[in-house]
């Protein structure tokens, strides 16, 4: 599927290869960034960072992995480091999560849920977010996060248990 892109890179036709990569992967990479970072603007910045890295790394691409796998590996690592630096920049206080959410208003419910998901460790947060963004397809999440499907399921289970605990302990109503 990625053979055409691989051929373009091998022939040093980098601008065309980048265009193809963007056409095929920009939305998926953006979703991955969104799953890790949760803020659309920041996710878009990180998506740009990823494609700049891809552009710089193209001359060193050795063809051992398919361009898609290679791109996802760079994307995942970039998202993880961006998540780590975000964690230094801002932390959500526990009290903010502990507030009971009695409102049934859709927007506040969504916000509440996003806050709960935001409390999960980055990889669990990414797994559960991508699972829903990718139409509940574990195989897609596994490809994006570069891990076996079993590992994705295990992250999903842990994330669901943690969210369930948060809801039970703090009496959140969903």
């Amino acid at each position, binding site marked *: 599927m990625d053979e055409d892109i691989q051929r373009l890179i091998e022939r040093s036709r980098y601008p065309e290869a980048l265009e193809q990569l963007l056409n095929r992967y920009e939305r998926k990479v*953006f979703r991955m960034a969104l799953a890790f970072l949760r803020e659309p603007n920041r996710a878009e910045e990180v998506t740009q960072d990823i494609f700049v890295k891809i552009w710089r790394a193209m001359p060193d691409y050795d063809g051992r992995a398919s361009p898609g796998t290679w791109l996802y590996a760079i994307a995942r690592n970039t998202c993880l480091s961006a998540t780590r630096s975000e964690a230094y920049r801002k932390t959500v206080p526990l009290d903010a999560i502990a507030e009971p959410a009695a409102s049934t208003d859709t927007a506040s419910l969504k916000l509440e*849920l996003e806050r709960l998901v935001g409390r999960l460790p980055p990889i669990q947060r990414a797994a559960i977010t991508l699972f829903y963004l990718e139409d509940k397809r574990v195989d897609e999440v596994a490809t994006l996060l570069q891990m076996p499907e079993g590992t994705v399921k295990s992250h999903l289970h842990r994330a669901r248990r943690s969210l369930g605990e948060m809801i039970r302990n703090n009496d959140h109503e969903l």
Partner: protein
Amino acid sequence: MNCELTQETILDSLTGPLPEERRISMESHLSTCENCRQFAAIQRSLDAQLAGALRPFDLSAGFRASLRERLRDDTSSRWRESLPDIAHLAGAAGGTLLLLLAFPRYSTTVALAGAAFTGATYFLQAVIRDSLEEQGDIS
């Protein structure tokens, strides 16, 4: 089926379809266990809410234009970064060529000396540049 296995099965059921036998065992346990029923209710409600809340955003309309601008800046800055190397190599090659024209009888020696000089000064330049960059990082 015990509680632990039932809860794992409930979580599995949210990821994909279950084999019939497993589903029947789970339902059978749920009919007798209030704790697992509560767990199932929370998890099913959570699943429905997550499916509704986690919807994909689209990239902004200006994404590609802005990326192209960054790539243009990146390419020109990398070109600027390579200028000292290019100037050094061109200078050394030019000097060697002039010496070759001036001393054609010693062409092999001149060519070897030119290559050695170019290599040594390139290394020296790299060391000086690295140490300057390091000082810049520290300050």
